[in-house]
């Protein structure tokens, strides 16, 4: 490249999160000339933290968990219900989860993890341009022939590429404009978003391991629903890191707006629940953050390709918002596949929509689209069973507590009363219907 020649490479990836980095990693390993443009000061600096499922990454970089900055591998999970003064939970795990590959479930701080991943991508010889913002794409041609040929970097020059992979995350400003420009099809339903709010609370390692019953680098992931999230379509979580806890919740944006409490008040209420308080007490607030999560699911997934572009990860709404809340793994799977297809397109010398169509076609056959399809009804179900996050859990808790209440009355009376309490004020038909619907959440 001479100083006045325009910069033209094989692929430009917009966004240096797990999706974009996976695409770039595959492409660089195939020997393509690839540039990743990340608006954050460093890759991951615009992201938060949480669970990472590592199946796809392990395919790309076998044994990555030996080298990556992982806080803890998740050896135990629990699903808990919090009521007013009551609680219930199931906690499960197996010894296998404490050994490689650790059930492919890890707690990571994304600012560190993404940075490490970006380093591996650079090592594979992709160029990483951090702290640079893509304002939009550059197009050529009209109508059906119209295609994206480059990117416009804010306060800087234009760069050109044969294919542009859009990995600009949940708040996909660039992707959104590309849909207009290239007349790409939106999802059947508009995308909806959850707001994730998280605090990092510092605690000594021994305290964490004692309180959660962990050894060595074992970690625990707790999902919690119930009274702190009353009126919200959402739930809370606590994940253990080495010397800190990540605690927070994710809830549908509209439900937060409607519930009359600020995200801050919600998380405070969650932290003050007696069961939660004793897990975090004595801790020091180190950091807080918030992030948008696309949760429209399968029905909101748009067309994933256009002339010269492919959309991956959160920008494409590839998030499984069921109990698994799996996002980064889907992002990496889609990025990896898009990278492979772009490498094939380079070999053929054909970057038309027809060639790139291999990406969505192959994606259909992977767990990404299969899972999204299986859970496509989830957003609707959650909208229609307002009680699922607060009222039912509270009732279930109360049922257990009443059931085990020790007194001199006969067990038959106690049990009958417990059931009566559980059903009090509950319209039976609605309960039955909700129960049937909720089955699809599993």
């Amino acid at each position, binding site marked *: *490249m001479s100083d006045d020649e325009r910069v033209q490479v094989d692929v430009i990836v917009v966004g240096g999160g797990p999706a974009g980095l996976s695409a770039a990693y595959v492409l660089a390993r195939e020997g393509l000339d690839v540039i990743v443009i990340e608006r954050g000061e460093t890759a991951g600096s615009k992201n938060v933290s949480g669970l990472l499922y590592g199946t796809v990454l392990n395919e790309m970089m076998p044994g990555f968990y030996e080298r990556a900055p992982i806080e803890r591998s998740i050896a135990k999970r629990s699903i808990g219900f919090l009521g007013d003064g009551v609680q219930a939970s199931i906690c499960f795990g197996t010894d296998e989860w404490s050994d490689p590959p650790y059930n492919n479930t890890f707690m990571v701080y994304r600012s560190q993890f993404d940075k490490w991943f970006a380093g591996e991508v*650079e090592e594979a010889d992709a*160029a990483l341009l951090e*702290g*640079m913002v893509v304002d939009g794409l550059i197009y050529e041609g009209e109508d059906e022939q119209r295609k994206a040929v480059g990117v416009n970097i804010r306060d*800087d*020059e234009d*760069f050109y590429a044969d294919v542009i992979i859009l990995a600009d995350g949940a708040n996909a400003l660039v992707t959104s404009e590309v849909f207009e420009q290239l007349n790409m099809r939106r999802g059947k339903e508009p995308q909806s978003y959850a707001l994730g709010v998280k605090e990092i609370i510092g605690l000594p390692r021994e305290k964490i391991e004692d309180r959660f019953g962990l050894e060595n680098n074992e970690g625990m992931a707790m999902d919690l629903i119930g009274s702190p999230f009353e009126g919200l379509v959402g739930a809370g979580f606590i994940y253990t890191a080495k010397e800190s806890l990540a605690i927070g919740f994710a809830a549908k944006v509209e439900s937060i707006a409607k519930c009359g409490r600020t995200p801050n008040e919600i998380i405070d209420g969650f932290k003050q629940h007696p069961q939660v308080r004793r897990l975090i007490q004595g801790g020091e607030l*180190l*950091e807080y953050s918030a992030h948008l999560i696309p949760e429209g699911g399968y029905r909101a997934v748009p067309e994933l390709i256009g002339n010269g572009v492919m959309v991956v990860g959160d920008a494409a709404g590839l998030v499984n918002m069921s109990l698994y809340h799996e996002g980064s793994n889907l992002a990496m799977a889609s990025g990896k596949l898009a990278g492979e297809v772009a490498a094939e397109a380079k070999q053929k010398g054909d970057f038309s929509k027809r060639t790139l169509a291999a990406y969505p076609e192959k994606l259909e056959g992977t767990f990404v689209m299969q899972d999204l399809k299986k859970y496509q009804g989830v957003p609707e179900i959650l909208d229609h069973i307002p009680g699922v996050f607060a009222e039912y859990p509270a009732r279930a808790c109360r049922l257990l507590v009443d059931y085990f209440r020790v007194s001199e009355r006969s067990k038959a009376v106690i049990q009958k009363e417990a059931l009566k309490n559980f059903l009090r004020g509950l319209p039976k038909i609605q309960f039955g219907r909700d129960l049937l619907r909720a089955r699809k959440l599993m």
Partner: protein
Amino acid sequence: MNSIVIVREIWDTRDLVGDVVGGDGELKGNLLTRFEPEDLNALEMALQIKDQQGGKVTVISIHPSRDVDVLREALYRDVDEAIRLDDPQFAALDTLGMAHLFSSAIQKVGDYQLVLTGISIPEGENAFLGNQIATLLGLPHASYVDALEGIDETGVTCKRGIEGGYETVRLPLPAVLVVGVALLKDDPRTPRTAKARLKLKHRKTAIPTWGSADLDASHLTPVTTLVKRDTVPQREIESQSIDPEDEAALKAMLNEWRSLR
């Protein structure tokens, strides 16, 4: 007009909550680094002179990069040469030792009219590095320089911050300028950002390293040594939350206040 700029990588303590320094004087947590902002101002001054009058800009830094490599960042902003001073013997220098090393490196680069650096010295919590370099090189210097008013073969005119205002001074060349605090964001002198094309060009450019064999290494034993560090304990505030509906609790709180008075 050739300039040499001394640039440093410092801990980024901007977003930290809580104590940064542990009881043993060691820095805690996952600290990242950043480009010393005053050094970035100094670099911008040198680059503006180069833009207007041509010439060469050389940057020198010390120690391996921890996180943000200021030398590479300077290359991304179009400096002509970047040099790293690095040697295991450079690990525990005091400010004077560092001034000796930098002076020696500046002489080795040679052919310069200006030496620029930022005022802050995070390593020693003092602002002497630029002044000591000037003294060792036997050059005139000005500190707290906020802007250059003019520069030609006969000298440099610069505006420096003083108590309650500014003064404009003129120095013959070569000279050492110690640049003041970070400029406002919309200031025309705001440091430029890295350029995408230069990032591509220089991401693998080899940066030469000079060690004790290349430099005057006669002042590597610190005159001043660190004995210990103490942190000032933060005032602890114990908060209590009381249910506003709970009258008894409110009364108890008022009584507690009264007893404290």
